[in-house]
């Protein structure tokens, strides 16, 4: 793609745009304007989308305040559970899980103060 071209043509080298349902619970929604469910479409990019990139994307685009209460380093803050399609992310490879279209990612905070 040359600079100036906005349209994204799926090609073998680029990942297709990924559409996800991202949910927040347990108080984590306070950092996202109190909205629990977010239907997001991740733009296409050369590298395939994984949880690591998703977190960066969330930090830039969804997180309204206090990023340190959600993200620590390149992973979630200890105490925040991540579920991918209703399964523990530890079973899916944690940060390295490659996101698929229509996946459901849930972040639940188990911390006292949200």
């Amino acid at each position, binding site marked *: 793609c040359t600079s100036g071209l906005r349209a994204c043509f799926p090609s073998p080298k680029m990942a297709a745009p990924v559409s996800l349902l991202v949910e927040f619970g347990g108080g984590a929604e*306070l950092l996202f304007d109190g909205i629990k469910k977010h239907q997001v479409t991740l733009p296409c990019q050369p590298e395939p989308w994984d949880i690591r990139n998703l977190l960066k994307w969330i930090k830039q685009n969804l997180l309204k305040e206090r990023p340190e209460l959600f993200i620590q380093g390149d992973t979630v803050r200890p105490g925040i559970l991540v579920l991918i399609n209703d399964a523990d992310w530890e079973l899916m490879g944690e940060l390295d899980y490659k996101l698929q279209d229509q996946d459901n990612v849930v972040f639940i905070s188990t911390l006292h103060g949200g």
Partner: protein
Amino acid sequence: MCQAQEEYGGCDQPQRRPRVSCAQKCMKCKEASPVLVIRVGDAFCKACFREYFVHKFRAMLGKNRAIYPGEKVLLALSGGPASSSMLRQVQEGLSREIAKKLRFIPGIIYVDEGAVCGQSLAEREETLLQMETILQASGFPYHLAHLEEVFDLPSSILQRAPHSPAGPENSYKEAVEGFICQQRREEGGSPSLPERRIQEKLAELSMREAPGTEGLAAPGARLLGAVRTEQLVQLFGSVKTLTAKEELLQTLRNHLILHTARAQGYSKVMMGDSCTRLAVKLLTNLSLGRGASLAVDTGFSDDRHGDVVVVRPMREYSAKEIAFYNHLFGVPTVFTPALDTKALEKASIHRVIERFLFGLQAEFPSTVSTVYRTGEKLSTAPGDADPATGAAEPQHCLLCLCALDTNVEDGSALQAILVSEQLSQQRLPAASPAGRGCCPGAEEQRGCCMNTTAPGADARADFLPLLCYGCRLTIKDTTCLESLPLYVRSEAERRKCRAAMKLEIQEFLLEDEAVNPGES
């Protein structure tokens, strides 16, 4: 000198998190694919997890044999995940048709603390609406309390009621068998069981106001409510640190729940403290100087009030298990912002410890359960007679009702703290010539103006000896003692007068062993 590579004999590295993959099967049924990992590497599928979760609750109650059949038990619901999960377990346990169903009579209490957490009236009403939906759906009698009601509590709350006789261990089985026989007889004969339910509902209706006219809604009551809210806000405003605020909030909440339990005839209160929460509480209490009461604060049953026993049936569930259960099986929760929501990480001791423990847990998944198991080994010693007063009952803290741990013995940590405090506050007598310049005419007073002899300090000096060390720290952070609720102040006054009176008549009291010199 330690070398990094050397291993001490028999000392292993704490177990780091092993990588579990989805390709493994559920460790229990070995058939379905797992949905979550519990503890260290135990993968469970959805059905097995549900069974494990439900079984653990019943096993906890059964193992401790604390709840007798037919007993009235008050469930303390905060809307959070653990207490909501507890409510669901009680519902499931009571609804079983088989003989192994739970046999107690539950009620629910929800305490609205919105005033303290800075919520507006509209936000509080919305939260209450959401909570009422859940409460009504449960089908159990429920009580909505506002923290403002704490100002109307009687001072008998702070007095330890005599322990109701629970009966020896072997009578638990007899009680259960007797209950089952009675139920069978009742089902065959008169319909006293549904009748009893209706009586309860009627009793509960008469005590609760009509729906829609809770304490804050009626005009006269609304004014009173506003005054109380103002008082509450003022009380918490006079507390300087977040740590002390949290401690005070917990104390007041416990008093309110206890009062409701006593007023409505509940002999047990179930709190939804999870394993994770208790591990944090254990370390926090150690940091707050409440080490002496760790056993009652984190154990399964807490009988410091005497007649009402607090039990913690969720204490073996980690926060992760509870969160997963709630998500997978649709347990409704209501999130209410707490005092420390979005606070800075070092805002209070509770936050610091929570962050420390969670951070460690992320890398070493057995941290929380290790702390918990160590806490489990603590047990309450039977109440010792206080040798100083010679009375049969030991002294108890005014606020938290734990046995007072402030016996200042030689060489104790408390003595060291008190000495350092005195040294850092008082001017030494040798320094008073230098102080003469700043306080003309006050040479006779020791330490001149540096010594606080204001009336407020006197009241505080009278108040502090009635408290255990942990509560003293909380009260020291409270600038205005007058804003404490009346029941606290009147009970403090009563105890002070009793102590003064006892001192006056001390020489006339007969000792148990001493022989009256008047007798031959």
